[in-house]
């Protein structure tokens, strides 16, 4: 448990630490988290949301008006994102796919 914030440590999520298996607080893992935040922002932006790292233990997602939630990992992030933006976050949404495709082609 973190003595400052009282958060009970969880087992790492399956999606974390795979390319460079290492302790959570190492440069490689911090880089991975930064990349994840960048990737999340790319996908969350069409929903009017942003993501940020929180103490290398969690992620904060927020709306443009400042409503926010803290989540442990990306699996917990999507339900929170759907609550905050008031619509489902569906990767199969043709509009989202077209937007990401256009970004890649640009």
């Amino acid at each position: 448990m973190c003595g400052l914030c009282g958060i009970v440590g969880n087992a790492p999520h399956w999606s974390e630490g795979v390319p460079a298996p290492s302790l959570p607080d190492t440069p490689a893992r911090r880089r991975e988290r930064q990349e994840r935040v960048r990737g999340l922002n790319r996908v969350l932006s069409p929903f009017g949301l942003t993501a940020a790292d929180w103490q290398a233990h969690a992620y904060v997602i927020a709306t443009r008006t400042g409503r926010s939630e803290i989540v442990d990992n990306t699996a917990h992030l999507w339900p929170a994102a759907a609550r905050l933006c008031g619509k489902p976050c569906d990767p199969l949404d043709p509009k989202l796919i077209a937007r990401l495709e256009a970004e890649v082609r640009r």
Partner: protein
Amino acid sequence: MTERLPLHLISGFLGSGKTTLLQRMLGAPALGDSAVLVNELGEIGLDHHLLRHIDGETVLLRNGCVCCTVRDDLGAALKDLLSRRARGEIPGFSRVIVESTGLADPVPILSTIAAEPSLRHHVRIGRVITTVDAVNAGLQSRQQPEFASQIAVADRIVLTKTDIADAGTIAAAMAQLRLINPGAAIDRAMAPDLDVADLLAEPQTSAALSAEASAWTRPSARFQAVAAHDAGVQSFCMVFDRPIDWVTLGIWLTMLLHAHGERVLRVKGLLDIAGSDYPVVINGVQHVMHKPLHLDAWPDEDHRSRLVFILRDLPRDLVERSCLAFLGLVPAYA
């Protein structure tokens, strides 16, 4: 932390030979250190294996197996079992075998283990074995949506009643199973050399893991066409020429499982991850993803990433397009 116990699941319809397979497992000396959770002790016919009754719902078998009834809730039954083991009220065991109920979709059982913190620290998901009645496979596949789930989640499939089915029926059943799950090994219950303990054996070495991943993801003829199925189930394999960005794949897959997890019956992959020297195996059943595993080496000369999906009522083209768009692997043409 002590090593977590594997929990193996025996799934299959009523009358598919699940109980007979369980009886054979209970008699196998190699599986003597097992705890077995069943729906009804009386149905298993344990008399000739019985050593003594521990209480009304728990018996000890001659080979050392502990056998218990699940009254209502599997999670509660498992916790009770683990707690009695810790107190020394029942003998120790090194694996748990669970018999699923006949009509049940096996995924909620797997979700129970993955979601419950007090269980997942002690138990991990092991092998899923599904028994299929060769005579009735075609009918069940058309009439019962759970059939596809039971087949899709299986690591091994045991085809039963092949002694009363003709060759054509058996071939049709095998083809049906392959359409839904092209990767799981299919054994015949009647085969004289069937080793029931081996059904529960998990690949321990990197070479064994690699061989299994290769069997699942080999781009073979059966993957070239979309394997459409009566219940809206299809399986296909995506092959990637370039290394995959793990972080982006994780973002996409968690989002897909959030939005459509119940329709992603299975995802299994052998991946060339950018920045990693070794291939990575991923394996998931609906919302439940296993911990990814690094292999020491590729199973063959083909080092391209391969991702196998078994989907229900999800359009393949949209899933593929979405995956490529997230990964930035969009073709140059519109």
